[in-house]
């Protein structure tokens, strides 16, 4: 599966694509939408930086609350360092900016594992009031440890999240962070972290306000589940999301054998490879306690080779 849709909404605001240079459409109120500023991956008529300059001229940016960076030119080969620089340079013109997403591209534009990212932490330094940061694409993504007082939600959607990034997030001090969503991906696409790299996150020591944790889309989803089963942070969570990965009976058994999960409001395991007996036990254990359990199998289907090798896939790889 690939990413098929652009963001429809972001930071509680409907997404609105800032129109091209030739359009004469009326623009919405600056604080009423999440502005999507985009170029094209291929044959761009206008580079992202130019589109952004037009945006800064056309919109009262002092009221803009949410920005979505769409496609930049040749994103399959090019880090968006110019995008990050342009955003940082515009910091004084965006005093109300609270939410930023970098890389809202669908598979037709650039498959998630082909999107080149960059060091996104300068954005956190430039926008100390930012409450939400999202990125799509793991190649060349960097996240050296930071301290940020305001960030409440951090999302990294990848087909392979580099171990250095996982460690950087774990080593960051994010006292306001409530919602962490990491798509760990597969080693084929640079997702080279191991379950032990998650330990600083799972201890919760630097994430005192964390309530919603998603560690998903992982080829090692069983190992993640096993690590989560005894993780201190879990007692504080309302939502635990281990969906989209290669979660099998092994991971399900680890969850059932670990600490109680009955305090959760939601346990999301959709797109999984768990057999019926263990699904039944999960349901019997958690649902009477009021846990919303999501176990839609989706398109999680095993393939078997001629030699008997079974292949299982994460939800978003490519």
């Amino acid at each position, binding site marked *: *599966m*690939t990413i*098929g*849709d*652009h963001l429809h909404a972001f930071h509680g605001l409907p997404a609105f*694509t800032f*129109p*091209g240079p*030739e*359009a*004469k*459409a009326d623009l919405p109120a600056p604080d009423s939408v999440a502005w999507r500023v*985009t170029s*094209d*991956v*291929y*044959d761009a*008529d206008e580079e992202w930086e130019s589109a952004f300059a037009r945006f800064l001229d056309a919109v009262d940016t002092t009221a803009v609350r949410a920005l979505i960076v769409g*496609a930049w030119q*040749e994103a*399959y*080969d090019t880090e968006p360092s110019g995008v990050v620089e342009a955003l940082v340079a515009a910091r004084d013109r965006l005093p109300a900016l609270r939410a930023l997403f970098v890389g809202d591209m*669908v*598979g*037709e*534009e650039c*498959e998630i594992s*082909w999107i080149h990212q960059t060091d996104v932490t300068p954005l956190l330094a430039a926008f100390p009031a930012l409450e939400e940061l999202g990125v799509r694409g793991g190649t060349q993504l960097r996240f050296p440890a930071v301290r940020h007082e305001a960030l409440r939600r951090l999302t990294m959607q990848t087909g392979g999240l580099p171990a250095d990034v996982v460690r950087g997030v774990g080593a960051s001090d994010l006292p306001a962070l409530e919602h962490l969503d990491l798509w760990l991906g597969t080693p084929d696409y640079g997702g080279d972290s191991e379950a032990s790299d998650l330990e600083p996150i799972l201890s919760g020591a630097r994430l005192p306000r964390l309530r919603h944790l998603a560690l998903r889309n992982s080829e090692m989803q069983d190992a993640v589940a096993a690590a989560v089963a005894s993780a201190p942070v879990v007692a504080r969570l309302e939502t635990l999301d281990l969906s989209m990965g290669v979660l099998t009976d092994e991971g399900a058994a680890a969850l059932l054998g670990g600490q109680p999960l009955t305090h959760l409001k939601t346990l999301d395991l959709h797109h999984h490879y768990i057999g019926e007996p263990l699904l039944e036990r999960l349901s019997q254990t958690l649902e009477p306690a009021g846990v919303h359990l999501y176990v839609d199998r989706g398109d999680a289907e095993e393939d078997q080779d001629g030699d008997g090798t079974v292949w299982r896939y994460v939800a978003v790889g490519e």
Partner: protein
Amino acid sequence: MTPGRPAAARFAVVGNPDNRRVTLFADAVRAAGLPGPRLVPWADVLRDGGADFAPDEIVRLDSPGEDAHVDRLLRGTDDPTRVEGSARWYTAFTSAVRGLRGGLRLDDPDDLAVLFDKRRCHAVLAAAGVPVPASPTSGPGAPPVRGWDDARALMREHRMARLFVKLAHGSSASGVLAVESAGGGRIRATTSVELAPDGRLFNSLRIRRYTDERQIAAVVDALAPDGLHLERWLPKASQRGRAADLRVVVVDGRATHAVVRTSASPLTNLHLGGRRGDLDEARAAVESAGARWTDVLAVCERAAACFPRTLCVGVDLLPAVGWRRVAVGEVNAFGDLLPRLTGLPGSGAEGRDTYAAQVAAALRRHGPRSTPGSPDPQDVDDPGDPHGKHHPLHPHPHDTRTGSAHAIA
């Protein structure tokens, strides 16, 4: 006999007996109150080197596909799932068409020769200012692509990191590869072509992804002797999370029928997992992107107008990401198989399927004259129709733009 006609029009169809296309067209002819068409099987045309038609017979050609015997005669292969043989098919088919003599024709041998050569078709569309994806293989003068090395060279020279490699004479996604490349030697091809260990190529119902350049080269090298057309891959717009394109049928100059096809892969063909999408939603997406739906249909009509002696074509229209721009992917001579789909509002084909619309248009072109004052019930056009019945050949501000998606805003 239809009242008001001095003599009933009569149709003949060149097609494969029992094929549903032929059946659907015959049904439409009979529904118009006319005798069923005379069927001339392609197998007979190929055996006899042609066929003769009466001067007043209205002659429709339908696809010679989906018939193993005819396919063997045209392509020279025993297995209809084999990919190879499309160049031979082209030569045999165009020559068979030229052997059809007499009648009132709804098709044209020269138009067909262009429609079944993607390189020539691309050049004709581009010359007419119809927006098409850029191609280094457009037209008869373009360099031949003799294999993967040639394709690679053209990709470098034309900075085409992402492209479709198509058989020049292929149809229905046969022999199509969607190729994307990036630095560091990364490459991937998405295709329904299956390379057998012995080097033969098969059309598969399963989409495959090749990431080993040697495998991609082997497939392309095996396809190349039949002729290849390269085209830039424009990122398509999406609908409900799936890549979308449109098939728009143009009958006698007017866009009459349209469907959206959506897919989770770059290939939207229905037999490869494509699904019908929602046309109203597509139309709304176009309008909310600041473009006009009538302009989208006009692009299809301008593509069809490149083939004025052909009554009906099916245009594959590619909406670019964001739905603000479109380009024409292909124009199909036999692109009217959309059973039970009725015409677009304001198209003049409301309530008619593609076949009934063609019967009505054929009678307008070739049917016996109606008696003045008694209009043919098959030939009613809404005089208030804003869409117009003319070929929209008027110049367009963006007509000179080819090689990228076409602004319709």
